[in-house]
Structure formats: C-alpha cells, structure tokens
C-alpha cells in the first residue's frame, strides 16, 4: 500500500485554503476578520512551501508574514475607524464588463500555467544550506542593500508617525 494520494489531497486542501482566504480578504466587510483570514492564507501558503520542499522559507513565512505583518496590519486596523460607507470603491456599475475582462484574462493564464511541466524531482533534504550559501556568496551585495532598506523603512516609519508636538518637545527638553 502506498501513500501517493496524500500529496495531491494536501495540495488541494491548501489550495482551497489559500484561495478562499484570499477571496475572503477582498469580499468581507469586517476588516478584523479580513486581517485574520489573511493570516490564514499566509499559513496555507507556508504549508505549500513545505509541500514544495522549501521548509526554511515556510518557517520564514510563518515568522514574517503570519507573525510580523499580520500583527502590524491588525495594529493598523485597530488604530483606524471603520467607515460605514459601501466597502467597494468603483466598478459597481461596470460589473458585467469587469467579469468579461477577468474571464478573458484568467482563462489564458490558467491554460498557460498548466502548460509548465516539472523537471525530475531533486534529491530530498533541507533547503537551508543551499539557500544560505547562495545568500552569502552570490547575493551578498543585495543582502547588504536589503539591510539598508530595512533601516530606511524603520527610520521612515518612526519619522512619519512620530509626533512633532511643540509643547511636548519643550516639556521633554525641560526635564
């Protein structure tokens, strides 16, 4: 007895999770629920990474997307006030046109994406050492650039949200 059927079944479940979660983010009007379903989508995506044999990236996915980015977005949701206006911006009157356009684009893309065929599977084992070798040899310079980018983003976020209240600044100076 073999368990060859397990991988397609797991893939189908994860695909349903990813697509349903993504659709819920777009369709739900409750923003907190949308943010939590976005985390669910990211978790399903981590499962897909595991299925593809990229365990390290799955771990990064859980840490960065499910951990950091979802929490940050929930923070933003809690800080802002919901508006009770309709959640959609436009395209309300152009629904048939939009559906026609999406179908016309989506069908060729789906057919094209199924035309890719896999190479023979590579030997098993983790992806960490190959990934680390690549990052710290061929991609050492982009790695440094990425660290500068993160520093710039941190400084930018602090500057953008920092309060420049003159009274408070004066009080801080007096102390």
């Amino acid at each position, binding site marked *: 007895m073999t368990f060859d059927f397990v991988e397609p079944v797991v893939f189908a479940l994860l695909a349903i999770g990813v697509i349903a979660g993504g659709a819920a983010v777009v369709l739900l009007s409750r923003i907190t629920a949308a943010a939590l379903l976005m985390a669910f989508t990211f978790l399903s995506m981590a499962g897909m990474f595991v299925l593809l044999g990229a365990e390290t990236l799955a771990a990064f996915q859980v840490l960065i997307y499910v951990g950091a980015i979802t929490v940050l977005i929930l923070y933003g949701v809690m800080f802002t006030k919901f508006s009770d206006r309709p959640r959609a911006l436009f395209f309300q009157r152009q629904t048939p046109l939009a559906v026609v356009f999406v179908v016309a684009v989506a069908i060729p893309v789906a057919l094209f994406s199924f035309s890719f065929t896999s190479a023979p599977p590579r030997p098993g084992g983790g992806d960490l050492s190959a990934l680390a070798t*690549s990052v710290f040899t061929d991609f050492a310079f982009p790695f440094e650039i990425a660290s500068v980018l993160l520093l710039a983003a941190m400084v930018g976020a602090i500057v953008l949200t920092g309060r420049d209240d003159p009274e408070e600044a004066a009080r801080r100076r007096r102390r």
Partner: protein
Amino acid sequence: MTVPLGAYVAVSAVLFFIGCAGVLVRRNAVVILMCVELMLNAANLALVAFSRKYGSIDERGSVFVVFVFVIAAAEVAVGLAIILSAYRNRPVVDVDQIHQMKG
C-alpha cells in the same frame, strides 16, 4: 503521483488576481495594503514552485523569495505609517477621501 508544477502556478495566478481585484475595488486603505501583501505572496509561491520543480541547479528562486520577504516587511511598515499619519491629519481611511495632495 506528485503535484504538477502547473497546479502551483495556477494557484499563484488565482491569488494574484484576487489581490489585484482587491487593490482595485476596495475603499479602505488598510485592506488595500492587505491585498498588496496577497499579491506579493502569490509571486512568492510562483518563485518557490519554479525554483523547486524547474531549476535543479541552485536556490536562486528561494533567494528572491527571501528578498521579497524583506521588501514586504519594509513596505507594510512604511505603508501603515503613511496611512496612520494621514489618518491623524484627518480621520478617514477611505482612499477616495484622502485627497489633500491631489494636484
């Protein structure tokens, strides 16, 4: 029986279209940020799938995914900072009402 590469690419394409539709349709700026994250994640899935199933030489696709993680983190931090500072100016998060900088 393994899952073919095309199935992964198809899931990635569907998720990308969902995120794209969300960016175009939704009104709330925070939800638009979420949909941008979905699109980035769809691109990640395509990169990992091609890297694992196609190129048996090195881990280039996975390295790109790591850099996409970095850029996504930076993007969401700066994006939320912009949304919050605009919200402090005038308490709305609907993108059709934030038009102080419109020329």
